[in-house]
């Protein structure tokens, strides 16, 4: 076998072994348990295949919500980071405000937000952005503040303007941190979306989870949980790919390993 084949086998064997081990353990456990408590893998797969259309619809709704929440949170987070790094009063206001806002649990904020603005997708996007703003803000502030002194000195020695310094040095140097915040935000956007949908009981994967649970369709509930897990991994993966693209594009060491 080729070296590439060996490497592939080496890389795939551990996760496949874990997958098979979990599948066998799950099947054995499910064989002795009532299906309402623990359905077997085939029942879960069957639940997914029986109503694939419903899962696709739910994924579409959740994707819009999570992507919207991530985009809004990233935009607000970056803006807050710029304000915080750009001025002393900004720094004094932004960080405590962002931390304080994030400490309040989403489940505590949500009922008020829904009461004021309704329960539609735009409102859920706003709610998700509450979760995603925090990591992007904090990581971006760290990144913007940690520009190597030698770079700044070099730009200073040639009389570069503040804007030029920001655009050509500070921002690219901050990208690895910004993307670290974005990746964390991507995972949180999925969590926030599911919570928001569970609280509103309207559409998406969270709505599917509630519906399946309420009517004791446990196999379908498991299928939703697996779809959510895969959905979260994909969302994180997209953010990681964006990081790879950006770091190649600007030649920055993104530390994405």
């Amino acid at each position, binding site marked *: 076998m080729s070296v590439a084949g060996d490497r592939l086998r080496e890389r795939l064997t551990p996760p496949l072994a874990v997958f098979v081990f979990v599948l066998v353990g799950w099947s054995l456990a499910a064989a002795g*348990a*009532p*299906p*309402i*408590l623990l359905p077997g893998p085939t029942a879960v797969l069957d639940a997914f295949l029986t109503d694939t259309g419903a899962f696709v619809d739910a994924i579409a709704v959740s994707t819009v919500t999570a992507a919207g929440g991530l985009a809004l949170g990233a935009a607000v987070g970056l803006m807050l980071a710029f304000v915080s790094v750009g001025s002393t009063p900004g720094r004094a206001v932004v960080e405590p405000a962002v931390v304080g806002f994030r400490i309040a649990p989403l489940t505590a904020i949500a009922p008020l937000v829904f*009461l004021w603005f309704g329960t539609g997708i735009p409102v859920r996007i706003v709610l998700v952005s509450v979760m995603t703003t925090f990591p992007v803000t904090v990581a971006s502030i760290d990144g913007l503040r940690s520009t190597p002194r030698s770079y700044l000195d070099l730009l200073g020695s040639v009389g570069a303007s503040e804007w030029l310094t920001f655009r050509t040095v500070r921002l690219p140097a901050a990208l690895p941190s910004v993307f670290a915040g974005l990746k964390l935000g991507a995972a949180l956007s999925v969590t926030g979306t599911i919570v928001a949908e569970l609280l509103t009981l309207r559409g998406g994967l969270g709505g599917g989870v509630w519906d399946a649970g*309420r*009517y*004791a369709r*446990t196999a379908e509930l498991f299928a939703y949980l697996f779809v959510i897990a895969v959905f979260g991994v994909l969302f994180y993966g997209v953010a990681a790919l964006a990081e790879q693209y950006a770091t190649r594009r600007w030649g920055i060491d993104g530390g994405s390993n």
Partner: protein
Amino acid sequence: MLTDMSRTRRSVLASIGAGTALTAGCLGVPGSDENQRVSLMLNWTPNGLHVPYYAAKAQGFYAEEGVEVTEIVGGDGSDASARQAGLGNNEFAVTSSDQVLLTTGGGVDVQSIGAMMQQSANVVFSTREAFGGELTDPQQLAGKTVGTGPGMVRMLTELYLQEVGVREDVELVDTGYETVQRVLAGEVDAAGGVFGDAIDARYQGATVDSLNVAAEVPSYGHVLATAPSFAEENPETVSAFLRGTARGAAWATNNPEGGVDALVEANESISEVREQARDTWETLASDHIVGPAVEEHGWGWHESEPWTTVAEALESADSGQVAPTEDVWTNEYLDTEFEYIGSYTNQIS
């Protein structure tokens, strides 16, 4: 219907029971002939609907009838309480008929041993402000918007609208968990909910009118459930629990203040909404615990029709496996010779 797991569980329990009895007999353990200790899991956090259990415990009725209810545990929905009773983690549970059908259908056997609420708590209600007048007749709902929360409430509201012949003329909208607030805000003309929602709306200053869903759609509210295996092995304990509960319900009906006292003493946080809890209990006692079956047979008596109604509604809602209705309820443990069961309506004033 008994699953393999239930049979296994029952045999294990029987072995443990036999072993314990043998050990107790050999060693002469003091108290081995005392009342059996059991726990009761509620369907939700304690509230005015749970007054009978607290009253019975506080007045010592359970102990007098031969059972010691050591703990009344707040619950997290009728689905969870039905499953906990079926699994034997709590001997008894307050749950709902739909969850008894679904839990048993899903392989965890649980059986209703008494119907505390002969009529479901569901109502269609509105405020004079939202409805633009008094709601007295279901025909007035034609052309209106009716909001409901999810699940059984929505199913029963829809069935009610069908029964009264206005389903096609009503716009049903999903109001999630904010049904009361949406009615108060006038965003919907009326709402399907439970009578506790109507009481909430009244306590927020509105003039509220309600239509009782059970008047058209036979369905139970709270039922008391246990695992069939537990009931078969402990028939006297089950009967004793039901006798104590019936007596508690009768006592609290005649002494609503004392009943609510028992609830509040056990759950201090309810003191802040004491009046609301009392209103809830009095509505339950006067409109939902009694009914034709109770007058004819006694407190807690089941009949088949409400089970069939709910089973059909679940099946049409594409729910999980629904158990055959004849497997999920029994009147076997209702001691109709006991005055607070057989002559319940004569015991309340």
